[in-house]
């Protein structure tokens, strides 16, 4: 693949300086990176469908409680639209909710890039 600018002298010089600065990272910083990596790996051993589901459990519980409360207070004859509850907003504004949308966007980009690489586009 044509890779313009890859061998620019300024890029090579910048890369040398950057690599040098990476080598000079102090022990305390390396230790914190190490801790962060182990936290991430611990996440791996706890991940899985059941745990993913459990992350939504508190929000789902609040939503269920809100629905029960509305049904009990208003009785069975609900003719109009249900009001949007605070928990709906809470769920929408949850950080993971945004991540979900980001993921969808990410896979769309991934597909587009793959198509471009395979020459399907343009």
């Amino acid at each position, binding site marked *: *693949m044509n890779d313009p600018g890859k061998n620019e002298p300024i890029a090579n010089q*910048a890369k040398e300086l*950057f690599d040098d600065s990476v080598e000079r990272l102090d022990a305390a910083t390396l230790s914190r990176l190490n801790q962060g990596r182990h936290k991430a790996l611990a996440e*791996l051993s706890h991940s899985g469908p059941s745990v993913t589901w459990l992350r939504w459990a508190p929000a789902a519980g609040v939503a269920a409680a809100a629905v029960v409360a509305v049904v009990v207070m208003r009785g069975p004859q609900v003719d109009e639209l249900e009001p949007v509850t605070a928990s709906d907003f809470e769920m929408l504004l949850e950080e993971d909710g945004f991540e979900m949308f980001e993921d969808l966007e990410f896979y769309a*980009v*991934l597909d587009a890039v793959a198509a471009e690489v395979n020459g399907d586009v343009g």
Partner: protein
Amino acid sequence: MNANVGVFAVSCTREQLTGAKTLQRERQLNQFLAEVERRALRIAEIAVRDRDEALDLVQDAMIKLARNYAERPVEEWAPLFYRILQNAVRDWHRRQKVKNRVMVWFGRGKPTDDEYDIVANTPDPAGRAPDDVLQTHEAMQRLEVSIHELPGRQREAFMLRTFEGLDVAGTAVAMGCSEGSVKTHYSRAVHALRDKLGEHWQ
């Protein structure tokens, strides 16, 4: 009875396979993160000009990769990881803007970049002469400031391509844009850096 023993044996074998697979994935992920973490930290640090903040961003990115994408093919991890990290850096900049507005409202200006001194954080483990070390530090500092002053997308393209060594396709995935955009951003970044650093560099 024999059928029960057979079912038990199959069940155990499956569990062993799943356990072995998880262990292998954990090893692969550990290797990937160990390989990428230091460069990722420096890339984040140049973008946000704060080591503690950069450490937090890198750790969060590692956790999100493990949590959401560990099952993806290994060769996809690098662009995925940098995609997560770049998003986190962009969010950080958005939050900083809001924070700075609030600080200005309360009469406290934002600290300038000049207050951040990378030299203070980086002793030289190679034991080089202080003059050499100082010269390299100064060159790196000029480079960092110049990269930091680039528009965000140019900065991302330059660091991902030059420092992390991602190819155009991988950088496009990490930045969430087309390969053509990556080439444009990268080319503009190189020209801008050449203009900024021209008098000090070749």
